[in-house]
């Protein structure tokens, strides 16, 4: 483990109490809603905010502990902020060289290293520009180069893609993924976008209201969400209940047939693409058929995401064509069918 941190911070109404560990070369995504304490976590790791209690150690060196507080400028780390925050009064190359200059490298060496990194992030030849002359994506690439040029032990990314437009985000995300793969130190990525977490992280920590509510691989968290927040985020309908053989009795009433024997408190999770909608009760194989009401529908890529209310609240994705053929409108009565084998079920 290169990063090992545990901290308690009280800030206003937020009581953050979390522990994270990140191995060399590992990328940990901290996923959570606004105000959950994600940025506070990063600021404590960076040394910008002293924790009320806790311990931060990197590569066996203690950064924070009782009576120990290494100031931020003495921590070998790099940080990328949401808005790039390139110093507006310096050129792009001077921005990238800044960390090397403050750490005592000579002007020429720092400049050479900066140029090298600018080339690596695809900004070759733009070093002489002012930050205001860069596009959002270019600025964020420069900010990444600035954070990585000093070869830090710890890389902190605070919502690095969320200020970018959708297309740019896609390219910068792919590049970031490549750079993170090459980066030898530990990375902590804070985001509220599950796609960032899925695409970039080796492991995900979900933080809600200052607490860790779930950890796991991105796939695991995406398939088996444990809170409504994560479930909504990954688009899964989360149905808590009690397993009785091949049936789950839901806490809110209703029951769901599952493919395996389960007992005790469990979650049943249904992916939106597993839900089929019919105007009349379907005949045949599906064991889970419920009459529901369409509460809302929003276009979602080439499909329409349907919010269904009733005994078993579900989210369903249907193709735009199907949506039109069914003649659905908010308030419409529909039959929803889900194969038992499509229902993920796991202990609570």
């Amino acid at each position: 483990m290169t990063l090992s941190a545990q901290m308690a911070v009280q800030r206003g109404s937020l009581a953050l109490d979390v522990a994270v560990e990140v191995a060399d070369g590992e990328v940990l995504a901290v996923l959570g809603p606004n105000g959950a304490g994600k940025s506070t976590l990063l600021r404590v790791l960076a040394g910008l905010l002293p924790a009320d209690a806790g311990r931060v150690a990197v590569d066996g060196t203690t950064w924070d502990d009782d009576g120990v507080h290494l100031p931020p400028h003495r921590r070998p780390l790099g940080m990328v902020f949401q808005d790039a925050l390139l110093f507006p009064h310096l050129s792009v190359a001077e921005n990238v060289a800044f960390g090397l200059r403050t750490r005592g490298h000579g002007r020429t060496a720092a400049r050479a290293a900066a140029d090298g990194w600018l080339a690596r992030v695809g900004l070759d030849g733009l070093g002489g520009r002012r930050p205001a002359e860069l596009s959002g994506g270019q600025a964020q690439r420069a900010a990444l180069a600035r954070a990585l040029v000093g070869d830090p032990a710890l890389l902190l990314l605070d919502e690095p893609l969320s200020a970018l437009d959708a297309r740019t985000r896609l390219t910068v995300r792919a590049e970031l993924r490549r750079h993170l793969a090459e980066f030898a130190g530990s990375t902590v990525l804070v985001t509220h976008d599950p796609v960032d977490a899925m695409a970039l992280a080796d492991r995900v920590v979900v933080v809600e209201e200052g607490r860790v509510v779930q950890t796991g691989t991105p796939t695991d968290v995406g398939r088996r969400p444990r809170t409504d927040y994560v479930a909504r985020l990954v688009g899964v309908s989360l149905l808590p209940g009690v397993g009785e053989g091949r049936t789950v009795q839901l806490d809110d009433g209703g029951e769901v047939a599952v493919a395996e024997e389960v007992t005790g408190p469990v979650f049943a999770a249904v992916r939106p693409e597993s839900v089929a909608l019919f105007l009349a009760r379907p005949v045949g194989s599906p064991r889970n058929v419920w009459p529901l009401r369409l509460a809302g529908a929003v276009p979602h890529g080439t499909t329409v995401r349907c919010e269904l209310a009733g005994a078993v609240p579900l989210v369903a994705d249907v193709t735009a064509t199907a949506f039109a053929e069914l003649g659905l409108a908010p308030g419409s009565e529909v039959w929803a069918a889900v194969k038992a084998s499509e229902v993920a079920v796991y202990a609570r």
Partner: protein
Amino acid sequence: MSRPGAGRVPLPLAVPAALAVAFLVLPLVGLLVRAPWSSLGEQLTAPGVGQALRLSLLSATAATAVSLVLGVPLAWVLARSRIRGRTVLRALVTVPLVLPPVVGGVALFLVLGRQGIVGSWLEDAFGITVPFTTAAVVVAQTFVAMPFLVVSVEGALRAADARFEDVAATLGADRWTTFRRVTLPLVAPGVAAGAVLCWARALGEFGATITFAGNFPGTTQTMPTAVYLALQSEPEAAVVLSLVLLAVSLATLLLLRDRWLGRATP
């Protein structure tokens, strides 16, 4: 940019703004009208004028320099540090703004005068006396003008994005390096504006200067003092001197504006 009506000023703003301009500019017009243009050359070449003007420019510039060296760090402390009693400190340092300058001059005597707390020690230990010297002019002007700089730099610091300082810290810059290489360049327009205000105030300073530094041609007589004295005997000369002071300060400010503030407001 050239959208029709883009530059239009709404009436509720235009009327008071025009009144403000009239209020501020008409007295100046009055001076221009009353100026004895025929004897202008003669008045300007009078021996005391050049001397007083040079001293005014020198002392106001020196006072601005002192204010920058001491006032910018003070503004930083007020805007960024978490020391206790900051609110009280802020109120205290702006006292010279509300203190009648003549009282300020008396207060300076009580500290730096030869009977003063620091002044008596300076005289005993080093044989230095401050009052009635050119240094006293700078001291008096600094006392009155520095708060203008502090207030405007503090405002600029508060308005500046403090996250840049966080970025600098994560890039290995300690607080001093951060101040020097990030904060100061970021608030440079605010510092420049504050310095200009400070300089203008120092240039026009009269009450504290004449009290603490006195009035002696060549060493402590500045333009405002000369104007005041001229007003006692030859009001026409006072008008001329005022116009000289005005012309020089306007020219300086316009020149500096292009150089310093030009980048901030293209």
